[in-house]
């Protein structure tokens, strides 16, 4: 069971959240190319290791959180608010 330490609500089970994928991709601004939008929507590093990802605490504070989680151990190392950039361990 992944448990996420929500900065607002405290430690909660994964079922309270909805996953929304890679949080490192940034939506291109107005006038950006099709290529840029393609990368935003489809291009993923899909790392085996630390992954910064969106989790939406829908059952709790309704906030999108940036979670740093390892894709082999499932360890959650850091949880940040949407506008913050959490530190990502090197390995």
């Amino acid at each position, binding site marked *: 069971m992944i448990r996420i330490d929500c900065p607002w609500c405290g430690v909660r089970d994964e079922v309270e959240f909805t996953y929304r994928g890679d949080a490192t991709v940034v939506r291109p601004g107005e006038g950006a190319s*099709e290529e840029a939008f393609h990368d935003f929507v489809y291009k993923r590093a899909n790392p085996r290791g630390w992954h910064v990802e969106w989790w939406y605490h829908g059952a709790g504070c309704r906030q999108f959180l940036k979670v740093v989680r390892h894709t082999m151990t499932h360890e959650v190392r850091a949880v940040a608010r949407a506008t913050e950039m959490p530190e990502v361990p090197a390995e």
Partner: protein
Amino acid sequence: MTQPFRTRAGGQIDRTVTLSFRFDGKVYAGHPGDTLASALLANGVRLVGRSFKLHRPRGIYAAGAEEPNALAELRTGARREPNTRMTQIELYAGLEAASQNRWPSLRWDLLSLNGLIAPVLSSGFYYKTFMWPASFWEKVYEPLIRRSSGLGRAAGLADPDRYDTVNAHCDVLVIGAGVAGLAAALVAGATGARVMLCEQDFLLGAGLVGQDDGWREATLAALAAMANVTLLPRTNVFGAYDANVVGAVERVADHLPEPPPHTPRQRYWTIRAGTIVHATGAHERFIAFPDNDRPGVMLAGAAATYVARYGVKPGNRALLFANNDAAYLSLFTLHDAGVVMAGIVDPRAESPAQAAARARGITVWSASQVIGTSGALALTGARIARVGSAGTDTLVAADLLLVSGGINPAVQLASQSRTPLDWSEPLATWVPGVPVLAQFSAGAANGVSGLREAAADGARSGAAASGGDAAIALPEDVPADATVLPLWEVKGRGKAFVDIQDDVTANDIRLAAREGYKHIEHAKRYTTHTMGTDQGKSGGLVGAAVLAEARGETVQNVGMPTFRPFTSPVTWGAIAGANIGKHFAPTRLSPLHDWHVKRAAVFMDAGQWLRPAYYPAPVDSDGWDSVLREARAARRGVAVCDVSTLGKIDVQGRDAARFLDRLYTNTFSNLAIGRARYGLMLREDGIVFDDGTTSRLAQDHFFVTTTTANAGPVMQHMEFYLQTVWPELDVTLASVTDQWAAMSIAGPKSRATISKIVDGLDLSNEAFPFMAVADATVRGCAVRVFRISFSGEMAYEIATPAGHAETVWRAVLEAGEEFGIEPYGVEALGLLRIEKGHVTGAELNGQTTAADVGLEKMFKKRGDFVGRVLAQRPGLTDAARPRLVGLRPVTRGEQMRAGMHLVETGSSHSLGWITAVTRAVELDGWIGLAMLENGASRIGSRMQAASPLHGALVDVEIVSPHFVDPENARVRV
């Protein structure tokens, strides 16, 4: 009801109470505290089952979860439960159990003839035959295989018992209430930590019975007195998951004939632990030797358990075959209980225990091994020989052969928690290494033997786990040396089983290796080794050792198959808990639901909602009559529909308009206050996501509606973009779906109807034109009136706080009575929208673009919005993509169906499909909407609608999807 094998005294059973039970129809007696296995042994029952493949006779082999043979169908009727381990079934009065996998009876089992052709039934034999003729597999071979495999029979009836789930949290979870677990819990409890102690057995500290009963009782009393300690007997921790969360199942009422009222049969615990102490004990492993499966062959520790804990002698004359001193203690327990000693066979030259045995007058054959057994349905003796000698064997008479090849710490849960395993040379087995998570292993689970040593290890772990410490008393020192001389297999004539349940022999493993299935996982899968319900607890390592020898490698090099959940099989119903039947998923009801019920509406599922499909009336001969009557009222007079299920989102803030402009393909910043506008929303990949109307209530206040199905997803979509992409915007979002009931009043008489009841608002066309929005009251209730239309008729939507829904609804019905008002349901709603050519989820199914459904004009000229860029990809702008069209059968009466495909006459090549059909009220017969390749250019042509599933082929005419009022004049009058 005699129990000839019951000892005179001792054990944790209540001899003052005698329980009667039945096995295979025969009545026996036992006592509270017995298991079915101990009670059967007390009654002298030796033959309890047949093996999986060869149907060999099998007896009770173990005393716990590692039991491979003694599986029964427990209880009868809807409560029948197959494959239940007799060693874990707690005896209760009137228990009924039956042996399984045999026909016609346990003693005379026809399929025991399989033994005659056993060489053909070698590992993987089925991969090499049954291939000809190909059609025989499903018809002949597979049914035969299926019938002969499986074990017990499922009840096939709905389970009458209830189950429950519960969530728990603790600082320290101790798994296992053996001596180490009790010590760990006691220390952790004394530090004040929140402690949970789970034990799969119904007796806590069962291993201490007859060893140090005083310490056991004192410790249990101390634990029971601690408010911060939760003791959970009968609770098996079945799996360890990420973040120190474990799953456990408590057998709340399995020891009773049936659960008391309102009490669950079993309870599923999800436990979130700060730290975990694995005090899960160890499983004794056997030694593979020819015919090591006869009823009467038993694990040494199990035999001692039957004597000490249950007061049962598992046989009259016992022979021990062991390679370690600790196993001698088991035999001595039998000796002390008066079981006749046939002797000890030990591959080792000498040991302290051998001397102790001789001092007791027990014969010890050192440097010897068991090379075979005799007997048919029960053991009569064992053939023994000196290690390395050929041909000179001795037959020793015995009805009980105790086996011990050493112990395997129960590392399953630790291993599931990613703790690496280390090889222990003295124990010749895997022990836990350094844990990755905040966990500890203690006692036998940690490879520690001896009562006091195990307790001390437990106490240390308890202290470490709780981050504190407390001094506790330790039990008596009962030293046990579990060091072994590794001995895995004695080769000889006859089958040496390495998996007793699945009939896997050492030769099967060797054959697998010879055929290239050398990896432990390949060998396991090819032979089915360790894939039985006991999961190889006693024989897994033995088979790995045989494989290692075949590969010419060490056991530790060969490794073990991954330990996956579950540690022991888990009742399906327990995990489901109460989340079944109507509790499987929540149901959502409109505020007008009670009115619909009173009106005898026929309901349908719409996602989580129950919605009225239609309202039958006495004049209707079928559902279609009702639907047509309702829709006709909307077209010709007035009708009212409950649309409370639409998603509603309150959007406020200085930047609310700018925000909506970026989310919708069209513009909202230029929408006037008091006006509504239809909006279209895309996903970022350019596909249509949702649609709905948005009203501007104030400069900084919008009221957004979504489709019923997408209410949640649209809200989340908005929150995602607001919080992560444009967090600088001043916008607040709130779902108000539940706050507002809504009803749509449609038809030429709609204005006349609601004018009678709406107060404080001029509803004339001039004052309140199409797409106007305003607040008013109805019968004193606050309402918000929208002039919007989904039906294509002049229509209004009235929203009101949910508690007033029925007041307002009734007012509408009363006001419309003179115009023949009808309530209309989802079916008529669908009819009206199809006639109008409006799209819904059937067309906006996550695969269509705006242009596909004729909404390309909804794209604003300038500015960014979600989905704009990727919607321009060639694959999404291809002119040949299927487009929305209308359909009518050439022969008007013919029925079309949703899901039909459109083909050129005579062709079977699909060019499109029908998304929705209905009988029409404005036209004759059926009409439909379809997505059709090059649809626009085909309007006016004829095609065929085909449903091979229904054997239907209908000539259809392709028409505009707007059957009714394509100029959209009616909504504006």
